[in-house]
């Protein structure tokens, strides 16, 4: 099954991570979520994901837009 896509290119911190967190909550672990985001959101989104125990399993980019594949880890902070 294709992982759902969450586009947060129109959002700013802290809504960027809030939306990612909500997106992950709708996925049963160990499921995956694709997140499309701008360069300036990378640091906060990735560091918050790592802090909460999720994993970024793939990264690709189209210019200044990045696409992260995030794994909703079973042991992550709810």
């Amino acid at each position, binding site marked *: 099954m294709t992982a759902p896509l969450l586009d947060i290119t129109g959002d700013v911190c802290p809504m960027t991570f809030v939306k990612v967190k909500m997106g992950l909550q709708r996925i049963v672990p160990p499921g995956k979520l694709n997140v499309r985001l701008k*360069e300036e959101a*990378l*640091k906060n989104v*990735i*560091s918050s994901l*790592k802090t909460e125990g999720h*994993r*970024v*399993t*793939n*990264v*690709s*980019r189209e210019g*200044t837009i*990045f696409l*992260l594949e995030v794994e909703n880890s079973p042991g992550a902070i709810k």
Partner: protein
Amino acid sequence: MSEADYKELKKGGMMRQAEAGHFSVRLHVVGGRLATPQLRSIQEAADRFGRGEIHLTARQGVEIPHVPQDALAAVKAFLAPSGVGVGVAGPTVRTVTACQGCRVCPSGVIDSPALAEAVDKELYGKPVPHKFKIGVSGCVNNCMKAEENDAGIKGWIEPRWEAPACTFCGVCQAVCPTKAISTSEDGVALIVDPTLCIGCGDCITSCPSGNMREKIRGYRVFAGGKFGRKPSLGRRILGVLRTKEETMTAIVAVLGFFREHGNPRERFGDTLQRTGFPALETFVNERMGLS
């Protein structure tokens, strides 16, 4: 009062006011931290000897203004039991400023108050060619403005790239605020330019695969900064230092260089304009046994 008498008073932190016969009494504060009994004592002193006012200075200090000259000795004696000493002025090492550091601030890399205490204990009030200000910022967010001080310190994270699982995804390069990370010509390695890196650690925090790691979580020294009439920013010297003790040695050496090369009433930044920064670095490295 003669000018000579006033100079002596000023050295002891008694600052003459515009209003004749009155002084603003400068207190000894380290890193902007006071215990509540000390605050109560200062409050009581301001009520008793001043006019119930306290002035918070630009560099985390505290002064009690409006103290008549004949009460200066009494205010000093009143404050002493609570551990509040009077400050310094003139050509001396001044108040050491500090943020709350890693024990309080989530961004903190170093224990800034601990370093400030150590520096204060060793150097506060020591005579130098001109006023010498030292400030400690716990990280590169630099709340204590390290570059504005004659000697400034910042908490610093030096990154190290490790090859094994790096996918060259480009995240570290995208998040680096100074674009200090580049890909090698053959495309098989990432290179961090130490002259551009500002020690923020964003590349480490953001790396999805954990291939950017902390090489050193330590201290970076800046020298020659000042504000006042002719502001200039301090410049980073030496490499990233690993320990508080090593940093103390570096600061003491920086001060030694100023004592040896500074002219009376010449700020350290101006001394460095004459001598150049390499002379300072050679001197400090020799003192640290790194030559």
